[in-house]
């Protein structure tokens, strides 16, 4: 039987958006951007989709993409379908907007994964570019009680095992676990593919499955946060840059060396 790979993907504010376009909302709890600047699929999640599609190419697999959010931009969140994923499940409910807490997100994702049914491999981007917590996948693995291998630069499946090149600070480990398992994927895996025309057309015709809060079989306390956001602030820049004045670059280089030497830094 073909592999079933589920990939989680988050819609986030475009991290390449100019800082001037981002502002703190009036409630001081979230960052908002003008409606004219569209969100993106979290970059690491696109890499996780790429990892799933490579398994589909080499082994044959069904790839289901799963997202949780308050409001989706369908043109954006359907990108994984255009890349070649088979199905898209969106958990969309006003109650899911700006989830402050990885714990709550995890409960929702876990409920959705269970509702999707049997899976062999769960792939997640290593972290999301908004809060960079890198914790939902780890919490999700605990919640679903499956083995977890974070920070993959290569993901393969051999019989009933996932075999992963896992990044460590000065190299990588080749690590394996029995399926079903969860793996988080890092950008070292390689760039996500561009949608081709055939997949683009197919994606246009595909409709996402949409589940609201009532569709997920959840305990009442699941939406109660374990972490609260009190306020967002702008960082104070305390460093005052001293620019080296010199007639040209070479003179500046020479002067810089002398200054750093005088300051005892070199």
């Amino acid at each position, binding site marked *: 039987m073909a592999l079933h790979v589920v990939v989680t993907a988050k819609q986030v504010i475009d991290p390449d958006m100019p800082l001037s376009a981002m502002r703190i909302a009036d409630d001081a709890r979230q960052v908002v951007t003008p409606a004219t600047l569209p969100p993106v699929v979290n970059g690491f999640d696109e890499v996780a989709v790429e990892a799933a599609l490579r398994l589909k190419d080499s082994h044959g697999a069904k790839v289901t993409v799963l997202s949780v959010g308050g409001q989706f931009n369908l043109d954006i969140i359907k990108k994984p379908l255009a890349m070649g994923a088979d199905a898209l499940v969106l958990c969309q409910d006003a109650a899911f907007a700006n989830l402050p807490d990885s714990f709550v997100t995890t409960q929702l994702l876990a409920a959705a994964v269970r509702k999707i049914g049997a899976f062999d491999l769960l792939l997640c981007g290593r972290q999301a570019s908004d809060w960079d917590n890198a914790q939902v996948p780890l*919490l999700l693995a605990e919640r679903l009680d499956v083995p977890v291998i974070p920070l993959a630069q290569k993901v393969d499946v051999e019989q009933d095992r996932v075999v992963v090149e896992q990044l460590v600070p*000065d190299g990588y480990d080749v690590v394996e676990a029995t399926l079903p398992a969860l793996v988080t994927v890092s950008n070292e895996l390689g760039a996500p593919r561009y949608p081709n025309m055939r997949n683009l057309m197919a994606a246009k015709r595909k409709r996402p499955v949409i589940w609201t809060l009532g569709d997920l079989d959840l305990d009442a306390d699941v939406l109660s946060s374990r972490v609260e956001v*009190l306020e967002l602030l702008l960082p104070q820049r305390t460093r005052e840059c001293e620019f080296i004045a010199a007639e040209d670059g070479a003179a500046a280089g020479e002067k810089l060396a002398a200054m750093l030497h005088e300051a005892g830094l070199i």
Partner: protein
Amino acid sequence: MAAAGRGVLVVGETVNGHLSPTTAGLLAAGQALKQDLEGELTAGLVGHDLTAAAAESLQAGVERVYIVDDVLLQDLPVDLCLHALAGLYQATTPEVILFARSPWGRELAPRLAGRLGVGLLQDCLEVGIEPDSRRLTALRPVYGGNFLARVRCAASPQIAVLRSQAYEPLAPDPDRQGEVVAVPVDLDVSQSRVRVVRRVRHEHPGVSLTEARVVTSGGRGLGGPEPFRDLEELAGMLGAAVGASRAAVDAGWVPGHWQVGLTGVTVTPELYLAFGISGASQHMAGCSGAKVIVAINTDAEAPIFREARYGVVADWQAVLPAFMEAVRNL
């Protein structure tokens, strides 16, 4: 679950049998919280051959060290470490648990939180205690450091992962005494659900990035792999390590483990020399802990100048040879 106790447990890490520098900073943070909580400061160590690290923890000011010492924990397999830590938690029930933002801490802390059914404060620059509620609060960067968030734990135990190099370690006092308590935890290999088949390590002669006193670093502005040979030569003269931005890594100019930034290495040198790096927040997250940042960039508006102490607005191709020549003659 056992009743919540009082005080702070610092989860320590060891490097070659000794307490890691990140743990030293973490203990300093723990000291401050302990005063606010009027509880005790303890350290938890999991691993093998922990005698030296336990003694160092006591010298750094903890009242008690809890250890789970088992030969199975020799290489710090995460699944077994998690079992050991969960056991250690049950035996000690601290109010607050602190981890360092290291690769190990970043993996273990969320999994422990998941197992205990609580949340955690990730990537904290500073932590504090609210006087009446005894809740743990923290300040942390979000959106690549463009904003800060003040966050608060709403469940117990309260767990935080800290950028502990932000805290100055307390001076060790060899006369300090305290208790070392071995916590019995049943461990067996079957609890490890991942198997390491093979370890592949990059050769990196010279100074390691995380320990370097000086880092020379290059980015997209260098335009190709060749200028990094110059940075390596400069690093050789200064006893420095060479780093790079993600753009340079993604372009294939330098190996991935040179990457400084949010998804790469975090460095804390005395001096960080950035050539042709614009200073995207993803990069600054890895180097803003440097004492002095020097930026060389053609764009005077580049964000890196906002955090640099010294700046040169010029083409690196003009600056670098003259700088190297001057360094050679020092």
